[in-house]
């Protein structure tokens, strides 16, 4: 369950952003999660709900955005979509080199409230 570590990291980012950008409450977190990243989406959502329970993000929705993973063939150089870490090249069957699909990034947030502490909901 390294998803717990990752969920704690999301919370840490939210708390840091709350201080920097002056908001008291988080309602929605848009997370880009590459389909080849080593994360179980359901476990991450479960862990996020658990670690944010008494925080500025309690009840917030963690929305996962999963852009397709791209790879290029190590043999013929053909670019293609990778469904897994071992998806072979559709042209020649060669092994792929991953170009994208490993992302784990908080993209943007839906927030409200003023500086932490001024809002009742902070």
């Amino acid at each position: 369950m390294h998803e717990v570590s990752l969920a704690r990291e999301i919370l840490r980012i939210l708390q840091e952003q709350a201080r920097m950008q002056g908001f008291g409450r988080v309602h929605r977190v848009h997370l880009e999660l590459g389909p080849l990243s080593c994360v179980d989406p359901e476990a991450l959502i479960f862990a996020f709900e658990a670690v944010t329970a008494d925080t500025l993000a309690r009840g917030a929705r963690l929305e996962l955005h999963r852009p397709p993973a791209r790879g290029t063939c190590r043999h013929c150089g053909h670019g293609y979509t990778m469904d897994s870490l071992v998806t072979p090249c559709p042209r020649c069957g060669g092994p792929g080199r991953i170009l994208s699909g490993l992302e784990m990034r908080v993209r943007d947030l839906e927030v409200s409230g003023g500086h932490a502490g001024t809002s009742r909901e902070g």
Partner: protein
Amino acid sequence: MCTTCGCDDHSPLRIDGGSLHPHGQGQAHAAGQRERRSIPVEADLLARNDAHARANRERFDSARVRALNLVSSPGSGKTALLVATLERLSGEIPLAVIEGDQETQRDADRIRATGVAAVQINTGKGCHLDAHGVGHACDHLDLREDGLLFIENVGNLVCPAAFDLGAHHRVLVLSVTEGDDKPFKYPDMFRTADALVINKLDLLPHVDFDLAACEAQALRLNPDMVIFRLSARTGEGLEAWMDWLCAGRPQAQQADDRDEDELETLRRRVAELEARLQRAGLMSS
């Protein structure tokens, strides 16, 4: 909109003939605060760990220490491999070990019995080491020039994959009692390791483990992977492993050189694999 209850200034109610909000509050002061707004962040979840990992790597480089992160499932023989390795290298080059386990000092005790300094990290409920913890563990060690630092991760073939510790190499230990299909079952770990040690080779006659099939899966995930077949218990195959450990120290290469070297290794490996595929094709036809 009011920050207290969320009402706005269009309310039909009036207090003392005026606004609900004294001193003009409830208008400008609260405007926007309860309204939801979108803010960009663009923050990588691994950025903080990666920053610690970079700091660790710089520390290792400046001390001219080569660091290895040993990962595997529990019971693959990481500690036995380490003990066998340390016994052979002790007195020849400076050695240090960081042990990671959820509980107990047992592994650090096993290492210290060889005369090598060891620090034990207990992660409690944690399922992997991270770069921050490794940095602090290094504070308790004397990292001497031209030495080797072994970091034995928590036994877990899943979670440690995502966390760079700042080591120069990630060594995956797999024992023949675990099954030859582990690479495709745990692809993240195999993809990110640059060396594979297939351990407990002395047990091979007693188990159904197809070495070639296992290695082919591992190389499919990572064509650059260096593979060692050995038995930490009998010492069979340890020499190649020791040669690899002792070669390449210290890591003083520039990044560009390293990229070029990696590219060259990759080209060689692709050529080897193609030859193997061709041979396999000829044999099966």
